[in-house]
């Protein structure tokens, strides 16, 4: 049996059908795993009233690469679900923060592990779960908690995505993926949580059967579209960040 290749000819083609109002998750932790090229393509595609899910909105580090803060600046975003609406260091300023503070864009601030688990739960058919994280904080105010074996836990709900944008090192034609080092981060859980996963790939896409089944990180059943990242300057690749000020 042969399966049809999931490889698309361009980033524009891969994101062409994304409708206004979609919920989109983005892999990436700092530069590794961030789908720069798909973010750029979505900015050009122009879908609006989007809900975006990511670890951070980006823009605290230099040089600035495409980040979801740019989609906010482009007027495409209604809401962001993330672990940072402001930078870790009060002296760093995220471009997103002013849109949030002025009320132009809504945000839901979620602890990072809870964010990852809400995505994992969505992909694994678990509608909600209890976690010890954020108990006793203002994030838990007015929300359902439960004592289990003497400890208090907070109820959190699964987070489903319409689309996931991720980046991996290697893919075969049917979408089996391998990640390189910390490129993996949110990629695998975003892929399982999404109706349609689009992956940008560093290395040339190989024929099905080339990756040993035991070595697959994300099975192709979770991956629907692949786009090969062209060499620079046409394609966008992680860069060395500039040393931050002390």
């Amino acid at each position: 049996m042969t399966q049809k290749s999931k490889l698309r000819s361009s980033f524009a083609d891969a994101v062409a059908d994304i409708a206004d109002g979609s919920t989109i998750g983005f892999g990436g932790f700092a530069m590794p795993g961030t789908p720069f090229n798909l973010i750029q393509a979505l900015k050009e595609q122009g879908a609006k009233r989007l809900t975006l899910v990511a670890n951070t909105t980006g823009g605290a580090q230099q040089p600035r690469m495409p980040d979801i803060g740019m989609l906010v600046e482009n007027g495409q975003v209604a809401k962001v679900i993330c672990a940072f609406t402001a930078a870790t260091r009060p002296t760093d300023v995220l471009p997103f923060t002013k849109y949030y503070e002025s009320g132009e864009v809504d945000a839901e601030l979620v602890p990072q592990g809870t964010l990852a688990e809400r995505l994992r739960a969505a992909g694994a058919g678990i509608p909600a779960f209890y976690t010890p994280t954020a108990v006793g904080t203002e994030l838990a105010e007015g929300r359902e908690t439960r004592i289990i074996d003497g400890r208090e836990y907070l109820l959190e709900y699964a987070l489903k995505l319409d689309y996931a944008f991720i980046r991996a090192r290697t893919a075969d034609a049917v979408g089996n993926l391998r990640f390189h080092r910390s490129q993996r981060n949110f990629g695998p859980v975003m892929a399982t949580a999404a109706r349609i996963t689009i992956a940008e790939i560093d290395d040339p896409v190989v024929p099905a059967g080339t990756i040993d089944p035991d070595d697959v990180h994300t099975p192709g059943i979770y991956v629907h579209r692949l786009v090969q990242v062209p060499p620079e300057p046409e394609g966008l690749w992680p860069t060395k960040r500039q040393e931050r000020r002390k």
Partner: protein
Amino acid sequence: MSGSKGLNRQQMADRVAREFQDGWIVNLGVGIPTLCSNTDIGGRDITYHSENGVIGYGGVAAEGQEDLNLVNAGGQNVVLNPGAAVVHHADSFGVIRGGHIDATVMGAYQVSMTGDFANWKLKGQKGGGIGGAMDLAACAKRVFIILEHVTRDGSPRLVTACDLPVTARGVVTLVATNYGLFQPSGDGFRLLEIAPGLTVDDIRAATGGTLTVADTLRKIAPG
């Protein structure tokens, strides 16, 4: 940092790192806690876990040797130690929530005498930066905090109760400041070790809540 007394940033990190025991799995937060990995603690075997799923990373990569797809929690390009492993984000926080982290070291704005601490949101701020701090705080076996003893305007950061939104309650096991090493004891802070150049009275004057002094009070040996 200007005008601060006592220990410098690396010396605070060194003092905390000397608590790490052989075989521990340790998570270091961004900023001063990162410096704990510079400390020479002899032959003790420590596995550093980073929230983005890197288990067993080493130092910052040498100039020109960086793998741009390998970073620690602070976004620095690091190297891997022999025996390292990489997992995805949900598994990485499974390591944390599952109680597999022996110690986490974080910065903070405030620590209370009941072991609450605040490090994600400033007063009056809308939103904030939580990252992995709430997961680590709630679930690591030990929570070590490093912070300057007083704010820029001289207010105590060790306080009776946090007036900033807390990250977790009752979890802090040890606090290192530029003035000394402290344990939140519920009804106060217990001074375990004192930095060179400071007196107990200096510290009492700069600390919110009750300060008690350990019978075994020692001077911190910097470096």
